[in-house]
């Protein structure tokens, strides 16, 4: 006789559809990707101004010349100048991670003793998130020397640049830390304090490690942003990669040096992004491997 009513979910007995799974689907997606990419390349190549653009932006000889540099001809090596960017963002990042954490912890505190410092921290964050970074760099890079404060006023442009970057970015990153601290459930605080751990020890061993794990993607985002913002320090006269590219470009009337600078920045940021993906995946694997018994 008839069994229980048949439930049908669509195509009866014909297996997966062409475009949903299996080898056919992979072929289609590969082919369509190639077609789209080829189309874009064609568009670039066939545009009327293409040869001029290729000569001005992607000229291999100029790219090489700008990468190597020739001070006597009036331009510097973009590759060597990148080293200044690297030193600036490494120094800045360390200081930012520390200062931002201090600000975040201060703003999360509730004790009345900390009230004045809390107010100052809030004003600081509001000001430095509101003022564009380039203005901060200007103000510090030209203002501090003008104040004539002895050795404070005679530092190099890169030092003022790092100072400006630290002040500006710490304001942003402190908010990221606060989000991280808030993302750790209050019950973790309760558990840690119940063991008799002090507020600081609980923060250091229980709350912060969890908070930071939760905010690694936005922290990295800000770090990549920082790497690129070191280019702004060029306005203080420091010869960093973007400035070196500009000098080449203005001297020789060719923009290929900018492409070199862009490629170099990508070489810095992409491995960092992949490394973070790896960190996140490893942390997940370690914590969630195997279903609970």
């Amino acid at each position, binding site marked *: 006789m008839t069994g229980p009513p048949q439930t049908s979910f669509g195509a009866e007995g014909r297996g997966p559809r062409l475009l949903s799974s299996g080898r056919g689907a992979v072929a289609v997606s590969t082919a369509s990707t190639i077609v789209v990419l080829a189309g874009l390349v064609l568009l670039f190549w066939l545009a009327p101004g293409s040869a001029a653009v290729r000569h001005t932006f992607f000229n291999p000889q100029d790219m090489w010349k700008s990468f190597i540099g020739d001070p006597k001809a009036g331009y510097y090596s973009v590759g060597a100048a990148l080293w200044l960017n690297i030193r600036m963002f490494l120094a800045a990042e360390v200081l930012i991670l520390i200062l931002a954490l201090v600000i975040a912890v201060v703003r999360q505190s509730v004790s009345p003793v900390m009230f004045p410092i809390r107010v100052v921290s809030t004003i600081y964050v509001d000001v430095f998130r509101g003022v564009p970074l380039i203005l901060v760099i200007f103000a510090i890079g030209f203002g501090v020397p003008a104040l004539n404060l002895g050795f404070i006023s005679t530092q190099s442009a890169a030092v003022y640049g790092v100072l400006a970057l630290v002040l500006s970015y710490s304001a942003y990153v402190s908010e990221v830390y606060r989000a991280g601290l808030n993302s750790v459930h209050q019950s973790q605080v309760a558990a840690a304090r*119940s*063991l*008799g751990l002090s507020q600081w020890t609980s923060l250091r061993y229980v709350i912060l490690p969890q908070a930071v794990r939760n905010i690694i993607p936005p922290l990295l985002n800000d770090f990549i942003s920082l790497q690129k913002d070191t280019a702004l320090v060029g306005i203080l006269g420091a010869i960093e990669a973007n400035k070196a590219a500009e000098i080449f470009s203005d001297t020789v009337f060719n923009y290929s040096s900018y492409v070199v600078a862009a490629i170099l920045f990508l070489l810095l940021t992409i491995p960092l992004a992949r490394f973070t993906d790896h960190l996140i995946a490893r942390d997940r694997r370690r914590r969630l491997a195997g279903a609970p018994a």
Partner: protein
Amino acid sequence: MSTAGTVPADGSSTALALSIEGLQKSFGASAVLKGIDLSMASHEVICLIGASGSGKSTLLRCVNLLEPVNAGRIILWGQDITRPGIDQNAVRRHVGIVFQSFNLFPHMSVLRNITLGPVKALGLPRRQAEDEARALLDRFGLLDKQADYPDRLSGGQQQRVAIVRALAMHPRLMLLDEVTSALDPELVAEVLDVIRELASGGMTMLIATHEMGFARDIANRVCFLAEGRIVEDSPPAELFSNPKDERTQRFLRRIIDAGRL
């Protein structure tokens, strides 16, 4: 089996471990504890029962100073821990608490969860803390989990680790806050067994629970909380078969109807 009324074999005094006098606690405008009076002798096991929201958790969290009290006193081994200027961290080192939602530290292995307190709060050398931790884990059949992270353990295993974590601090008083309420039924028994073992070892315990059968077995006294006060405080045999207060009777009737007693 109840240990009610027996004198501990080691002859230690049964001086008051805990004395709560007129404790009041409000959250904003809502008063949760309206005047709690309770005393506990060393090695006593007291179970707190009552409806949800009756203040059992709040009471426990006041005893280890997680919650500040609004009025009243808590006297722990003769010291008023609610006086201003008390070192709260020191108090908490001697009072262990286990939570309903385990609250293990997810970014640490089981072993590190247990040794964090002894190393950082008690100042034990790491090697010693780890040896003691392993001994405790072994005692409760969890030694093979020492390197695992909490997410890999079942609920019952996590709660037992949480108990071990509290025990590693050598507490003189243990507070258990509905420690089986979040567990699947088949995992409850293993946790109750651990608590039984602690009780028979003489640990002073204040236990908030819904497990009435367990309370009847293990407690020296059972306290029923309602409307922010302890309405009835008697040995279990008496309270469960012969409740005096009408609110206690109503509560027990609901429990029996639900088949939980």
